[in-house]
């Protein structure tokens, strides 16, 4: 029997919930509600190897003590670079002037990817996939607004499909878009793409305020029209709504309105990521407790309609070392041929002291820097002290490396940590059919805060009896 003393990277957590503890061991696929006495007995048994007299509890202890019964801890990528998907940035240009957008770049820099470059990127990726024996590949489109360079999208969709068919494989396409394209293009997207993430912040009063055209006109009518067409089409439509301090209390209402009017496959609520533009217009991110509370309420609405609520950092079905493309070996090709690990702007990485460039595609050849690939792979939760003792670590993996990189010690959870911990807790309790406890717990604000700000969630660190 292995004891926890020999496993410094413990993956067994205990989080206080009202008068009980949520025992959570994601690698063992185990969650249980136990009282303090049982939690301490488990801890002691795991530390000393001493069996517990209570047979069911002893069974749990044996399960937790056995590495053989646990899923391996996710590890960073190694070996040859095999991207899980090819990211394409057809252009950084965009036809909207969203109030909070940190992606805005000067018009002069609105380069559109050359068609030959796009072809080379797809061919390179498909060759890697073939060599690695992958039967299924994916291409994701980011921007700017990808459909501001629609010819690149058309070329690469058809090219990738042709190449995949030649290799006897399949290809899926995903795009993140503002949905302000023509109806013809909208129907094309519904026909050809597999996942469409369409930014729609809510009804017209919210959406037009957040996401106007440069001349001040609202974009709601067109985006909503696109959402209606896409929701009836064959692609999976996910609506992505940016939430601010002004709109957070309307999340359940927005969720209901989405379900009624658009019937998406899923809805993703994302708290505002502060940026220079958002600060200029005094748009603030929501309070994390309010966000989590309203997200959970919205989730109830969405689930009753069979719509998937998305808060990726709290996806307990996924165990990972990195939340975003960076660290997953993703290769994202910019209009100028730069291959990077991240689709955010280079100036944003550099502000964090990161260089996420991996290499370059030029004149039909791809050159990657092995050291750069290794550095990108080091962007994982194993190297994040803040996350070390958090029960969310294998799902959240520390969030975005660029936008969420708090440098503090383990108990300095920030806004994103707080809402992630609350929502993850809800998801675990829901999986146990105990979601009613969430509301009881959230109402006891002081007790909830104690859970949320607990410096260590390790069962090992459960304090001794006074």
């Amino acid at each position, binding site marked *: 029997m292995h004891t926890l003393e020999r496993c410094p990277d413990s993956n067994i957590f205990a989080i206080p919930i009202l008068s009980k503890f949520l025992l959570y061991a994601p690698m063992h696929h185990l969650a249980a509600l136990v009282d303090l006495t049982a939690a301490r007995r488990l801890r002691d048994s795991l530390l000393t190897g001493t069996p517990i007299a209570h047979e069911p509890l002893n069974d749990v202890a044996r399960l937790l003590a056995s590495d053989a019964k646990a899923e391996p801890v996710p590890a960073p990528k190694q070996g040859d670079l095999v991207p899980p998907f090819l990211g394409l940035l057809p252009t950084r240009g965009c036809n909207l002037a969203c109030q909070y957008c940190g992606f805005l770049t000067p018009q002069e820099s609105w380069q559109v990817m050359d*068609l030959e470059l796009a*072809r080379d990127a797809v061919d390179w990726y498909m060759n890697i996939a073939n060599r690695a024996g992958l039967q299924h590949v994916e291409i994701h489109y980011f921007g700017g607004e990808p459909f501001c360079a629609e*010819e690149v999208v*058309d*070329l690469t969709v*058809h*090219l990738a499909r*042709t190449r995949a*068919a030649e290799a006897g494989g399949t290809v899926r396409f995903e795009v993140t878009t503002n949905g302000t394209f023509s109806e013809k293009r909208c129907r*094309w997207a519904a026909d050809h793409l597999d996942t469409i993430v369409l930014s729609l912040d809510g009804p017209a009063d919210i959406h037009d305020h957040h996401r106007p055209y440069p001349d001040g006109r609202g974009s709601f009518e067109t985006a909503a029209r696109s959402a209606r067409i896409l929701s009836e089409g064959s692609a999976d439509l996910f609506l992505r709504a940016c939430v601010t301090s002004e709109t957070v209390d309307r999340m359940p209402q927005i969720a209901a309105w989405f379900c009624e009017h658009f019937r998406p496959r899923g809805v993703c609520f994302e708290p505002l990521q502060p940026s220079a533009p958002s600060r200029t217009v005094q748009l603030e991110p929501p309070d994390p407790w309010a966000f989590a509370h309203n997200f959970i309420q919205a989730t109830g609405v969405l689930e009753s309609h069979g719509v998937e609520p998305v808060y990726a950092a709290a996806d307990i079905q996924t165990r990972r070392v990195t939340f975003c493309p960076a660290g997953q070996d993703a290769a994202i090709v910019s209009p100028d041929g730069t291959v990077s690990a991240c689709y955010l702007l280079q100036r944003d990485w550099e502000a964090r002291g990161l260089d996420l460039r991996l290499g370059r595609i030029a004149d039909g050849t791809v050159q990657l820097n092995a050291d750069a690939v290794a550095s990108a792979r080091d962007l994982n939760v194993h190297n994040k002290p803040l996350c070390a003792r958090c029960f969310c670590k294998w799902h959240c993996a520390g969030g975005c490396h660029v936008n969420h990189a708090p440098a503090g010690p383990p108990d300095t959870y920030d806004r994103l940590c707080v809402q992630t911990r609350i929502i993850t807790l809800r998801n675990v309790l829901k999986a146990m059919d105990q979601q009613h406890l969430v509301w009881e717990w959230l109402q006891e604000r002081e007790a909830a805060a104690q859970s949320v700000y607990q410096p260590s969630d390790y069962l090992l660190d459960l304090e001794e009896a006074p």
Partner: protein
Amino acid sequence: MNGRGGWVHPIYRCTPSIVWVRDAGQTLAVDEETGQAWTLCGVEAVVWDLLTVGYAYRRIVLLLSLIFSLPAAEAAQALDSLLRRWREMDLVQVSEEADDGKPDHQCSV
């Protein structure tokens, strides 16, 4: 050439009674009036898609050359041949128009 010495170009238009749907790996087209049906795969499906999105002839040639690794001349021949075959199959109808020096475009429908 036409009587004024200009070039005459065929215009291929979608037959008005044709409806179509894009499925996994193929495009299905049906003539609502006759009940005739066609399954378009590979390059046919690509060309149909580019036409319905609104690409002009020269851009289709360029895109075909990139997708199928063809020299431009061969891509153009393939496109011409396909359009002629579709005309025979009544998927498209053809008319002719004199070139008045208009830039490369899809004409109004």
